[in-house]
C-alpha cells in the first residue's frame, strides 16, 4: 500500500437514529481522512455527533440507530455492510478504541494479565508465554513501573490515571493501524493527562498508528493533533491544519468556540459567548444548522452551505466565513 493512501477515509457518512419522537440525524454527511502516523483531532460539544462517528467506524451502532449511507474505507476496504464476524476480527486488532472511562471498559472481576492475554490470543495464535511477555512489555511502554507485579492486579487496585494507561496499553497491544480515542483524558488531572498525551504521541510516532482523538478541549487538540475537524450538530463545519484552524478560524462556530476558551493574555476579561443554545437534533434549523446562533448570517444561509475547499487544504462550509482572504 502506498504511503499516501489514508489509513481511514470516511466519505459522506450518515448515521441516524429512528426514534419514536422522530429521526435523529446524529452524523450528517461527514467526510474526513487520517494518514499513517497522523493524529486528527475531532472537536465538538456534547451532542455534536463526535462519539457516534467513532462508533459508526467500529460498526457499533445499535438499533434504533443505523448507518444510512456513506463509505468507511479502512486501508481501502469499505467497512459499511461488513458482517459481524469480519468486524470482530478488526476490532481490538487493526482498529482499537480507547473510551473516556476505563472503569467501564476493563472487566472488574478479571486480573489485568487475563484481560491483556485474552486480547492477544483472540486475534493471534501465540503461546500463553509469548502473550504474557507482550502484555508485560506493553504495560512497560505506557510508563507503568514494575509491570510484572501490576499484571496480577485487578482494575480497582489502580488509580484512574493508571487504569487509563492500562486501557491504552491494551489498545496498542496488537499494533493497530487505527486508534479511536473518545475523550480519554477528560476525567484526569493535568499532570496525568500530560503523561498520557506523552505516551500516545510516542506510540503513534513509533508505530505509525493513525489516531482520531475525540475531545471538547481545544487546548489539548492544539498541543497534540496535526489536523483538526470541528463538528457541530452532526456536521463537520471546518477542517484543516491545527495551526491554521486555531489561529485563523473561518467558520463562525469555530471562531466563537476559540473565543470562549480562557487564555493567558485575556485575564479577567469577559469571555466570548456564542448566543443561543445547541439545537435539538430532532428539530434542526433549516439551512445552515448554526444560522440561529450566527453573527454573520444572511438570507443565503437558509440553504445548506456547500463544503468549500481552499487551496491550502482547508475545508469549511459557510457562506460568510471569517478570515476570507485565505
Amino acid at each position, binding site marked *: 500500500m502506498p504511503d499516501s493512501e489514508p489509513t481511514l477515509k470516511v466519505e459522506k457518512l450518515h448515521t441516524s437514529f429512528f426514534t419514536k419522537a422522530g429521526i435523529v440525524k446524529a452524523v450528517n454527511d461527514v467526510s474526513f481522512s487520517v494518514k499513517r502516523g497522523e493524529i486528527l483531532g475531532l472537536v465538538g*460539544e*456534547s451532542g455534536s455527533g463526535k462519539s457516534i462517528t467513532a462508533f459508526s467506524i467500529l460498526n457499533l451502532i445499535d438499533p434504533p440507530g443505523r448507518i444510512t449511507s456513506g463509505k468507511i474505507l479502512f486501508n481501502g476496504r469499505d467497512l459499511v455492510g461488513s458482517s459481524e464476524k469480519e468486524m470482530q476480527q478488526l476490532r481490538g486488532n487493526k482498529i482499537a478504541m480507547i473510551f473516556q472511562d476505563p472503569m467501564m471498559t476493563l472487566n472488574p472481576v478479571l486480573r489485568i494479565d487475563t484481560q491483556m492475554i485474552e486480547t492477544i490470543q483472540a486475534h493471534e495464535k501465540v503461546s500463553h508465554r509469548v502473550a504474557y511477555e507482550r502484555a508485560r512489555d506493553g504495560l512497560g511502554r505506557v*510508563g507503568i513501573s514494575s509491570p510484572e507485579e501490576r499484571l496480577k492486579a485487578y482494575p480497582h487496585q489502580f*488509580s*484512574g*490515571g*493508571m487504569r487509563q494507561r492500562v486501557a491504552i496499553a491494551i489498545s496498542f497491544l496488537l499494533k493497530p493501524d487505527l486508534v479511536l480515542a473518545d475523550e480519554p483524558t477528560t476525567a484526569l*488531572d*493535568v*499532570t*496525568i*493527562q*500530560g*503523561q498520557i*498525551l*506523552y*505516551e500516545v*504521541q510516542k506510540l503513534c510516532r513509533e508505530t505509525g498508528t493513525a489516531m482520531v482523538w475525540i475531545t*471538547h*478541549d*481545544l*487546548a*489539548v487538540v*492544539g*498541543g*497534540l493533533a*496535526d489536523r483538526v475537524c470541528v463538528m457541530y450538530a452532526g456536521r463537520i463545519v471546518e477542517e484543516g491544519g*491545527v*495551526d491554521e484552524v*486555531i489561529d485563523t478560524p473561518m467558520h463562525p462556530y469555530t471562531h*466563537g*468556540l*476559540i*473565543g*470562549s*476558551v*480562557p*487564555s*493567558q493574555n*485575556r*485575564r*479577567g476579561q*469577559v*469571555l*466570548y*459567548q*456564542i448566543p443561543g*443554545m445547541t439545537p435539538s437534533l430532532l428539530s434542526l434549523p433549516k439551512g445552515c444548522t448554526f444560522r440561529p446562533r450566527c453573527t454573520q448570517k444572511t438570507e443565503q444561509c437558509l440553504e445548506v452551505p456547500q463544503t468549500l475547499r481552499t487551496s491550502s487544504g482547508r475545508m469549511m462550509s459557510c457562506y460568510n466565513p471569517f478570515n476570507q482572504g485565505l
Partner: protein
Amino acid sequence: MTDPIIQLKQLSKQFIRNLDFAEKAANLLGAGIKKQVVHAVDDVNLNIFKGEVIGLVGESGCGKSTLGRMVAGILKQSSGSIRYRGKDIHQLSTEERRRVQLNIQMIFQDSMSSLNPRMRVRNIIGEGPLVHGLTSQSEMDDYLDNIMIRVGLDPEFKRRYPHQFSGGQRQRIGIARAIAVKPEFIVCDESVAALDVSIQAQVLNLFMKLREDLQLTYLFISHDLGVVEHLSDRVVILYLGRVVEIAPTEALFEQPNHPYTRVLMAEVPRINLRHRKYSPVAGEIPSPLNPPSGCHFHPRCQFAEPRCGKEKPLLKEIASERFSACHLNE
C-alpha cells in the same frame, strides 16, 4: 490592608477508619494493626479578603474539596479554626452561627446530584430565603424573579423540575440558590468542570458579573489552571493536604516558585501551544494514607536534596505577598 473576611488558622482534617471486629480480634493476639488515618487537609493557614477571588488548585485527592467543605461549614475540622470577620465560627452560639454561615454558600460541581430532582425550581431557590425570613410567601414571586433574571434564567421556568433543564441552566439554578440568601462569600467547587467550553464561558462570565454586582468573595476550587488564571486574584496550590505555594495570579503564572507548581504549569494545555513535545512527569500523586516523609513532593521532585526527605518545609514569604514551602529557597 483591611481585615480578612475569612481566616483559616492551622486548619486540619483527618479521616480515620476505625478497626473492624476481625482486626480488633487480631490485635488482641498481638497483630498490632493500626487505625488508618488520612490527613486530608494538613495545617492550612489562609486569609481571604473582601472582594477577592482565591483560586484553589490541586490534583484529585489533594484535599481541595475537603478544605472547601470545611469553609462552607459542611464538614467540621479536626483541629484549627475558621474565623469569619474575626469570630471563630465554632465558638459561636447556635443562633449566631446560623446567621454567620448564611453568609457563606457553596456551589457544587455536579448540578444534577446537588439539586433535589423532586423539587420545583421555585422551591429549590426559594426555600432558603423563606426559612431565613429574607422574603415572605406573598413576596416570594417577585423575589425569585429578581434572582432568576440576575443569573440569566427565564422566570417562567419556576414551576419546572431540574431534569427539564440543560447542564448549563442547572448550574445557573445552583448559583441562584446560593445567591438567594444574599451571601458575602461563595465556595465554588469545580463549578464549571463538567460543562462544554461555550457553556463554561457563559458561567464564568456570570461569576464575574455577580462578583461585581453583589461584591462577592469567592473561593474557587478547580483543577483547571486556565480557568483559575482567568478568574482569580490569588492562587493557592495544594499538594497532599498542604499548601505549597500562595501567590498573586499574575506573578505565579509568570514565575512559579515551588517545583510542584512548575510541574503543574508545564502541563497546562494551552491553545497557543501547538505540536507540543510532552514530557513524562515522574510518578503519580502518592496515597494520602501513607504520604512521603519530609516534603510530600520530594519523591517526584527533580531538585530534591537529602534534607527534603527528612524535614517538613514551612510556608515562608519569598517576596511581597508570595509564599512558598520549599527548602530550596533558603
